[in-house]
């Protein structure tokens, strides 16, 4: 396959970025999208140019590192698929493909296609956990969890923290990410004691980090590689109101 890539190049956070065009002549349909970029980078290196920086690690759709906006869509055209699991068979010969980084105020560009997503870690640090000190836990069977609750908690817990939801949102909101964690921990009995403080603290940090508010446009869930549903945000809102009322 022949493709024309237009890639966002930006040396440092301070300098202005620009789209640069790279023709590709030898793309195999069996390559993953990142393998296609590997091939480009090998060529750039030998041509004496700097390769394109992009984040990636596990390349099996679970670590959440890969983060490309492909033709305007975070993680590209396939539903429920991370960039690293996207294969070139989904593109057509002769196509022009635009590749850009996540764009959001809370995710500043580091270089080229790499952005800083550490704001997500700070949202988790604000309360996205159960305070369970090591070494004193009760027997696991002492706390039964109804299977439907455990299954629903698991579904929410599959969030990989990639940030596609933020990149897709017209408001740059990280609400789907935050809601996934709140839903997961709110559905298990162990998560109940801290349920109110968790939602208040995490939402407060979310806002402080520069993420926008949620207006239910649903773009987040349509690009989420793990299919976290919009109902998670409804759950967050419910918990949030409950916590506000409980506090007042």
């Amino acid at each position, binding site marked *: 396959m022949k493709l024309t890539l237009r890639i966002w190049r930006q040396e440092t956070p301070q300098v202005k970025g620009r789209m640069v065009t790279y023709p590709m002549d030898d793309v195999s349909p069996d390559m993953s999208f990142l393998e296609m970029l590997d091939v480009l980078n090998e060529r750039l290196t030998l041509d004496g140019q700097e390769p394109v920086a992009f984040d990636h690690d596990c390349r099996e759709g679970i*670590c959440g590192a890969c983060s490309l906006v492909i033709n305007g869509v975070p993680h590209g055209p396939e539903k429920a698929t991370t960039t690293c699991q996207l294969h070139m068979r989904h593109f057509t010969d002769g196509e022009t493909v635009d590749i850009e980084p996540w764009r959001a105020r809370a995710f500043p560009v580091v270089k080229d296609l790499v952005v800083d997503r550490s704001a997500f870690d700070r949202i988790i640090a604000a309360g996205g956990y*159960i305070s369970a000190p090591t070494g004193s836990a009760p027997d696991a069977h002492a706390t039964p969890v109804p299977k439907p609750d455990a299954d629903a908690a698991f579904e929410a817990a599959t969030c990989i923290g990639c940030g596609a939801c933020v990149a897709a949102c017209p408001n740059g909101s990280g609400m789907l990410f935050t809601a996934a964690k709140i839903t997961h921990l709110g559905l298990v009995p162990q998560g109940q004691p801290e349920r109110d403080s968790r939602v208040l603290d995490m939402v407060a940090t979310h806002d402080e980090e520069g993420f926008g508010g949620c207006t239910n446009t649903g773009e987040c869930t349509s690009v989420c590689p793990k299919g976290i549903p919009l109902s998670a945000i409804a759950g967050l809102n419910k918990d949030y109101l409950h916590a506000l009322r409980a506090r007042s």
Partner: protein
Amino acid sequence: MDTYYTDGDPIADGKAPQGPIEDRWERRRFEAKLVNPANKRKLTVIVVGTGLAGGSAAATLGELGYQVKSYCFQDSPRRAHSIAAQGGINAAKNYRNDGDSVHRLFYDTVKGGDFRSRESNVHRLAQISTEIIDQCVAQGVPFAREYGGLLDTRSFGGAQVSRTFYARGQTGQQLLLGAYQALERQIAAGTVQMNSRHEMLELIVVDGKARGIVVRDLVTGEVTTEFADAVVLASGGYGNVFFLSTNAKGCNVTAAWRAHRHGALFANPCYTQIHPTCIPVSGDHQSKLTLMSESLRNDGRVWVPKRAGDDRAPGAIGEDERDYYLERIYPAFGNLVPRDIASRAAKNVCDEGRGVGPGGLGVYLDFAAAIGRLGRDAVEAKYGNLFEMYERITGEDPYTVPMRIYPAVHYTMGGLWVDYDLQSTIPGLFVIGEANFSDHGANRLGASALMQGLADGYFVLPNTIGDYLAAGPFPKIDADTPEVAAARRIVEDRITRLLAVNGDRTVDSFHRELGRIMWEYCGMERTDEGLRKAIGMIRDLKAEFWQRVRVPGGEEGFNQSLERAGRVLDFFELGELMCIDALHRTESCGGHFRAESQTDEGEAQRDDENFSYVAAWEYTGGDPILHKEDLVFDYVHPSQRSYK
């Protein structure tokens, strides 16, 4: 004939307590010196890596009151490669009442490790396994549940009891998020200072003790020195020496290797676990291999055509023309034989020309019978996400066409040598998780790596490191100390040299070539001749690297090529040591199959009389020195493994 190494003194003391094996861990904990809570605040520990072992260790040490500095090269500690473990975690809970016990898990693990691990360590691991599940459940890890609300379990490769706890096919992710969240809690509490996008490039040893590390900030390129009273390496395994493996692209040996160059012994490097259920390679562009969870073997049947060169579609091959070779050769275990046996059996049938798919390097993993027996919905509920992943990568639907699988490098059992306290041969340097050699022996069984990572991080290290730290805080160190300046200079010189070559080959092209050598000669089957050849090839390739490599960009700022170049250099040295270790061990055991050492039936032939030891290698810059630690078996007596 060149042996490539010299013999050194045996290792006398692994520090395991004596007495009945059930009491040893209890005894060690009691005898370990304690650190007064007020003193813990004055003690600093560096933890490198944030996977199951490093994340849980940093969180636990922070909670205990130590000042912890945590480092990872990813942009977030949540992305460590433990997150990709699909299968499950073992624990001797006996919730199924099927005869499991601590002793049985201990027994199975020693045996599954082909009698090349330590009884004391493995017994401790089995004991702690039950606490791990309790801890994770308390953290809210959403394990699979029965309708009554209690935990569900499944059986896993090599085991005949149902002791594996799991969260669909994403157990590693859920366990890691549990540890990561515990870590973030400590970060918020101020006990852990997190440094992501930082890579450890050198160990700082002062007065014979590990006292810090040299790190590079991967965003700015700045090289700094960081000090502590103890250093913990939890930097994972080195499977990426093969280039193609199931490891994440960033996994590397650098932290462990630089510590090895400072005197930490490196044990059993040749023990590589080859996983039988990976998606086969599709072309030269391939950057990594994707594992399909071993749990698939519970319900999938493995087969190839009986006739060599039979290239008909699988549906056109009748039952009587199929060879369900695992069920045929190993009737007692069938498709659930341990990983090394399943992998080599796949290689053998492919070598006979009966492999399937492009290039003939694949075998079928067929769910038709399971779908017929359980229904599509039940199969989908169990394995849905794995089937989806397979379809995404291959473009084939495994509900209607059998999956194709082939073995791939998955996990490395070798690593830095540690004693019972998980301390290396450098005082103050502790090594946990996959980065140490400790508990797996020659062949890790399914679902025991997650168990070891969390056991080390949550329970073992936090107890044993206190015994060392009780003698601290150690004298303050500043940047002018000669050892510190020297370590820093090594890092800076190396970077300058790499950037100066400016040759005509990329870093990845060297890495791929090294990987091919390793897979060919130090992969599923090793021979004396092949290993000698490989050592020569690796030495030549390393020399060529210094002539021809091109590392674009500069030392400042974000430079991914520079990161990789340094790691590949370490892989050259490690690869050579792996071959030397494989060459000297003229027996077959677990993940190490020496073609010269097999039974008449073609099974691995162990040599307990001559090789019942841990091979711990000392770095010299020239030929390495071999130190042996004898393995003693008082409770599980070595026997020829038979899965027939």
